[in-house]
C-alpha cells in the first residue's frame, strides 16, 4: 500500500483480474480501511514486480487477497497517524480516519485532511506491506449456497432452453454487489455450457480432438442465457479481517446439477451424463 504526496493511495499486488472484478474490490477494501473516496485509490495488479499473490483459481482470489490488502492499508494508516499526530498535537493512538481526514477520536473537530498529511511525506511516497495470515481458528471457511433452474425441454427434438436460474449464495461479506452479481452471471453462463454444450470430442483412431475450434466446441451465446437472479445471504464469519469467501465456481458447479434435475423433472427420466445434448435427451426418453 502506498500513499503519495499528491494525496492518492495505491494498492500493489501480484494478483490478476481475469474479468472477475478483483481490481475493483481491492481498491474498495483499501479505500474503506483508509476512509478515502474510491476515486483516490488506485489498484495496480498483474505485474510480477509486485508482492506475490495466489493464482486466480479455486474461487480463492478475493478471500486470499482482500485480507492482505486490508492489513497493508491498516499499517499505512498507522504510519500516517504518526505523521498527523504532531500536526494535531495528539497521540497517534487517539487518532482515527474519517471521510478523507484524520481526526482526534474524542474531539472530532481537531482534524487534518488526508491530503495535507500526504503533502508532508518526506520522500516521494510512504509505503506499508501486509500479508494474508492463516484463517482465524474456529470459523467455517467453506462457501454455501443453492441454485434453482427452470428449463423447457422440447420432448420431440430433445432441445433444452433454460428459462430461469436463481442462485442463492453465502459468499461471506460481499465487497461489491455489482461485481459479485456479475460473478454469478458468469458462473451460471459457464454452468449452462457445462450442462448443455461443452464436450471435448476425441477420435481415438486418429488421435485428434475433432472439435478444437470455437465453431465446434460449443459455448453459450446471448440467446442461450436465461434470466439470472442472484441473492446473497451474508452469514457473518470471522475467518479473516474481511470475512470474504469465494464465489465464482459455486455458481458454476451448481448450475449443471440444478439443470440436470430440472430436465429430469421435465421429461421424467434422468440424463446421467453431461452435456445434456438432444441425442441424450431423446435416448433417455426412448425415442432413438
Amino acid at each position: 500500500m502506498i500513499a503519495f504526496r499528491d494525496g492518492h493511495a495505491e494498492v500493489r499486488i501480484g494478483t490478476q483480474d481475469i474479468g472477475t472484478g478483483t481490481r475493483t474490490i481491492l481498491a474498495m477494501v483499501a479505500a474503506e480501511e483508509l476512509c478515502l473516496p474510491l476515486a483516490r485509490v488506485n489498484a495496480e495488479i498483474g505485474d510480477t514486480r509486485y508482492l506475490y499473490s495466489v493464482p486466480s483459481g479455486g474461487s480463492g482470489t478475493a478471500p486470499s487477497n482482500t485480507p492482505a490488502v486490508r492489513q497493508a492499508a491498516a499499517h499505512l494508516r498507522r504510519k500516517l497517524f504518526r505523521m498527523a499526530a504532531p500536526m494535531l498535537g495528539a497521540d497517534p493512538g487517539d487518532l482515527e480516519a474519517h471521510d478523507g481526514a484524520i481526526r482526534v477520536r474524542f474531539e472530532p473537530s481537531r482534524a487534518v485532511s488526508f491530503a495535507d498529511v500526504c503533502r508532508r511525506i518526506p520522500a516521494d511516497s510512504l509505503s506499508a506491506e501486509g500479508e494474508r495470515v492463516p484463517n482465524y481458528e474456529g470459523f467455517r471457511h467453506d462457501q454455501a449456497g443453492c441454485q434453482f433452474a427452470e428449463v423447457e425441454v422440447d420432448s420431440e427434438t430433445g432441445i433444452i432452453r433454460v428459462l430461469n436460474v436463481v442462485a442463492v449464495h453465502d459468499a461471506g461479506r460481499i465487497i461489491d454487489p455489482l461485481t459479485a452479481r456479475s460473478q454469478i452471471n458468469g458462473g451460471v453462463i459457464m454452468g449452462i455450457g457445462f450442462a448443455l454444450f461443452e464436450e471435448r470430442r476425441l477420435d481415438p483412431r486418429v488421435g485428434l480432438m475433432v472439435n478444437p475450434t470455437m465453431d465446434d466446441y460449443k459455448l453459450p451465446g446471448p440467446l442461450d442465457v436465461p434470466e439470472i437472479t442472484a441473492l446473497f445471504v451474508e452469514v457473518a464469519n470471522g475467518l479473516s479481517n474481511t470475512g470474504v469467501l469465494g464465489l465464482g465456481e459455486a455458481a458454476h458447479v451448481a448450475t449443471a446439477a440444478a439443470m440436470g434435475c430440472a430436465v429430469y423433472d421435465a421429461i421424467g427420466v434422468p440424463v446421467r451424463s453431461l452435456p445434456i445434448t438432444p441425442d441424450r435427451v431423446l435416448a433417455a426418453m426412448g425415442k432413438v
Partner: protein
Amino acid sequence: MNRFSVVAPTDVAHASKLLATRGHVALAGGVDLIDLIKQEIVEPAHLVNLKALKGMDRIESDEGEVRIGALVKLHQVATDPTIRRQYTAVADAAGEAATPQIRNLATVGGNLLQRPRCWYFRNPDVDCLKKGGLRCYAKDGLNRYHAIIGGGPSYIVHPSNLAPAFIAFGANARIVGPSGERTVQLEQFFVLPKSDPLRENLLEPGEILTDVVIPAPTRAARSIYLEAREKQSFDWPLVSVAAVIATDGSQVVREARLVMGAVAPIPWRSPEAENTLIGARLDSNIAARAAEAALKPATPLAQNAYKVPIAKALMRRAVLRAGGIEDTA
C-alpha cells in the same frame, strides 16, 4: 496461411476469365474462404474479389419473380419487405443463420457455395475423402452431425440455410462462365458425393453464380423455415426444414414443396412427403404421415440416429404451420 495477392475485376467476364486460371479463388464476403485458407483446405495464389462487380448486390422484383444478386448480404435477405412477404421461408432462413455480425458480411452466393462443416474435412491434419484422401473418417468415426440420408462415400451435410428455402420455391441459379451464361434449377445444382466426393455443386472452374431467381409463388402458397440447433446463438442446424404449402378453401393441399437441410450432402427435397400431402385435407395426422414418408429413406450412422426424430418433428410442424393448421400431436 499462405501468401496471396488480391485482384478486383469490375466486370463478370474478366472475373470469370481469371477464375478459370489456376491458383485463382473467388472472394465475396470471405466468411468461409478465410477459414478455408487458414485450415489449409484451399491455398490460393490469387483471390479474385468479386465485390467490385456491378449489379450483383441488389434484390429486384420483376413481374412477380424476384432476383437476388449473389453479393446480397444475408441481413438484406432477412429484412427485405418483398422477400419477407412473398418468400417468408427464405427471409427466415437468412435470419436464422450465424450471428448478426456475420449476416452483415456473408453473401447469398457464399451461403450457397460454402464448403461443408465436417470436423474431419476442416481439420488440417486429416486427409479425408473430400480433400482427395482415401476415406471418409466420419463414416465409422464421430458422426453425430453427419448425414442421415444420401450419404456415401462421403457423409457430409450441406450447411446452407438458404438452399432448402430457395429450392422449396423452385428457385433458379444464374451462372456466368467462360462459355457464356446458363440457368440451372437450384434443385439440380447440388451434387451428391456418389457422383463426385470432391465437390458439392456443379459449378465449373471459371463459373460465377451471379443471381438466384425465385419465381412468383402461387397466390395461396404459404411458407415457413424451421431449424433445430443445440445452441440458440451461433450454431449450425441439426436439421432444418423449408416448406411451401398451398391449400384450397377446404384445406386440401394443392401444392407442397418440402426440403430438408443438414440431413444429407445436398439440400434434400422429399417428393415422398409432398405426394403424401397433395390432394389430402391437412391435419396433424396427415402431416405426421408426410414426416414419416420424408424420413423413410434415412439410414443413420452410429451416432446420428437422433436426427431422425428431430427431422420428423420439424417436418410435421413446418407442414402444419405453413398450412395454417394447429398442431394437435
